[in-house]
């Protein structure tokens, strides 16, 4: 067969009715999923005159990269006309510490809950899980107060803290489920070998947990990168992430809406998480199988 290596029984004839239905369905659904990407792409490569007269599905008659250039470096918000570029670097500066801290905290907490339970740890876990269901809006205001009291409001670290807090429920759940499924005897062996809480974590557990770190990492990269609400509420304009900038550009209509620039900006904003998915999709599926399905 191909490099895809499906398991089990041998494939049937290529054009059996079964296969026609199967691939037909797959292709129809693929069109639904690819349509927006296609429309965004072709629109971003047209100029406005062509957009006004043509239909949105037709490929560009004359390909122009001007919308991309404009979205990246010229689009205006108020009197700042430096496009998404500023937001891109802000997003990177927000993403890296938030990613590292939120994943580390979640992994460590999951490790405690899976391997070193103490009286009451399950109760706290329950509370944490409830947190996954609390609408963010409910906590926006209390968090303003908490950040104010900590003196972190408006700073990058305040935002990092917020991302860490809201990442905890679902990521801790993933890590805990994954760690619980690791063979218990490994922990016992390591303890007999004299490894303690941290020794086991760093030397035994982490090296075995690449898939779940990938899953958590991907969820966090997309979550943090795509966040709009926290970025806008808990930072100052000079720290605005790319999504906020995208929103600003899209909503700062000057005269007519420049759909091509909007689409280019939209695609630029989605580029980082998309790249992450395309490059680690396989690991993601594996990690999901290990972390989300069990327990």
């Amino acid at each position: 067969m191909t490099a895809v290596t499906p398991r089990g029984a041998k494939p049937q004839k290529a054009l059996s009715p079964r296969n026609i239905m199967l691939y037909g369905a797959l292709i129809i659904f693929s069109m639904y999923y690819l349509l927006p990407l296609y429309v965004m792409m072709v629109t971003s490569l047209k100029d406005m005159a062509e957009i006004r007269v043509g239909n949105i599905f037709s490929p560009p008659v004359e390909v122009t990269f001007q919308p991309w250039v404009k979205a990246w470096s010229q689009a205006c918000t108020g009197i700042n006309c430096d496009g998404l570029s500023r937001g891109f670097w802000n997003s990177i500066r927000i993403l890296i510490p938030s990613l590292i801290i939120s994943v580390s905290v979640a992994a460590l907490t999951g490790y405690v809950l899976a391997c070193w339970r103490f009286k009451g740890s399950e109760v706290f876990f329950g509370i944490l899980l409830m947190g996954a269901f609390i609408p963010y809006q409910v906590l926006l205001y209390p968090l303003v107060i908490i950040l104010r009291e900590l003196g972190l409001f408006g700073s990058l670290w305040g935002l990092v803290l917020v991302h860490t807090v809201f990442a905890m429920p679902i990521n801790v759940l993933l890590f805990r489920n994954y760690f619980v499924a690791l063979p218990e005897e490994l922990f016992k062996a390591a303890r007999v070998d004299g490894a303690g809480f941290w020794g086991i974590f760093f030397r035994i557990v982490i090296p075995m947990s690449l898939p779940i770190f990938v899953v958590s990492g991907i969820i966090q990269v997309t979550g943090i990168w795509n966040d709009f609400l926290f970025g806008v509420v808990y930072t100052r304009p000079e720290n605005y992430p790319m999504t906020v900038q995208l929103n600003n550009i899209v909503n700062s209509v000057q005269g007519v809406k420049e759909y091509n620039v909007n689409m280019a900006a939209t695609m630029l904003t989605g580029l980082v998480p998309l790249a992450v998915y395309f490059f680690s999709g396989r690991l993601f599926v594996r990690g999901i199988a290990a972390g989300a399905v069990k327990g």
Partner: protein
Amino acid sequence: MKKTFALLASTSLISAGTAALAVDLEVTHWWTSGGEAAAVAEFARLFNENTDHTWVDGAIAGAGGTARPIMIGRITGGDPMGATQFNHGRQAEELVEAGLMLDLTDLAEAEGWRDFVNPTSLLDSCTIDGRIYCVPINIHSWQWLWLSHKAYEDAGVPVPTNWEEFIEAAPALEEAGKIPLAMGGQPWQATGAFGVMAIALAGTDAWKAVHIDQNAEVAAGPEYARVFEAAAQARAFAARSNVQDWNQATNMVISGQAGGQIMGDWAQGEFQVAGLVAGEDYSCLPGLGMNEIISTGGDAFYFPKINNPEVEAAQLELASLMISQEAQVAFNLKKGSLPVRGDIDLTAANDCMAKGLEILATGNILPDANQTFSPDTQGQIEDLMVEFWNDPSYTAEDAQRLYAEIIARAD
């Protein structure tokens, strides 16, 4: 001129003689459309040129509804900006009461704001317990109907001169494939348009009874019934304008796709950016041509308290600059709004602006809804209006009944 101004500003403000250190002053606002951005750039230019400080622009797109929560969050969260826009009125009331805003009274008295601010009611809405906390910077009046000459020429009917003619001409426009009334989908636009119709059709007294005395009986009465009927009519004429933002709607008028738009004078800036000439390419009818009046809404700047004398000095310099003659002229010409000073001569003002100034001079003024209602009441009215405008089966009677209920519990 600039030099003298700067000198004057620095002597009058920094009395103790502390050397002014350069401060990066962050200013947040929600001016992001073409005309707005050009206007705010004037402030930034003057501030950077005339002082040692730097204007850090904190534009937040998506109108006041998006921007205000962020501003308030920052102020209450202990990370205040140097200065921030609010509308005239009650939006910042509680922030002032909580002691989060800088008291500008000394500056205002030293410069004699009360002598030149016109109308003085603008300064009153900055005043809480006798102290002044904000700088009014412009007057925006909602009371305009903008009309596209091109659209009416295409339809072969004369450009209307009042609301009644507008209604009469509407079918002709529809026949010509035009949308008689352009209307954005955002709630505040429906609410604003309704307010304009209320003043124009129900009359000043009824409007005052509802807005200032919060008289629910008047709101349920026959004068307002007329307004709701007219709104239902307007709704039908606006049914096909599938746009969200106000300036997209304005753009329909500019391009002649739509006959007219009820919108505040900020729309002026868009006509100007598009290179259209008032009186030739478009007309403007204050008070829908029925009741010529200017409502004195607009924007004011507040200066959150920052416990740093250097920043405070910079804030006061900015406050002083914003209300200065030079800045008022530069800003308002670009913005299409009216200046808050009675002592400047806007020779550069175009046809529509001049009309506004004239009405202002005659004293035919009313406060803005933002000044009379709390944001909460205003929000409830918006909910009602946006539903009414978008649902053709919603009757005028039902809407009026609910409107009266909101007025009855307004605060």
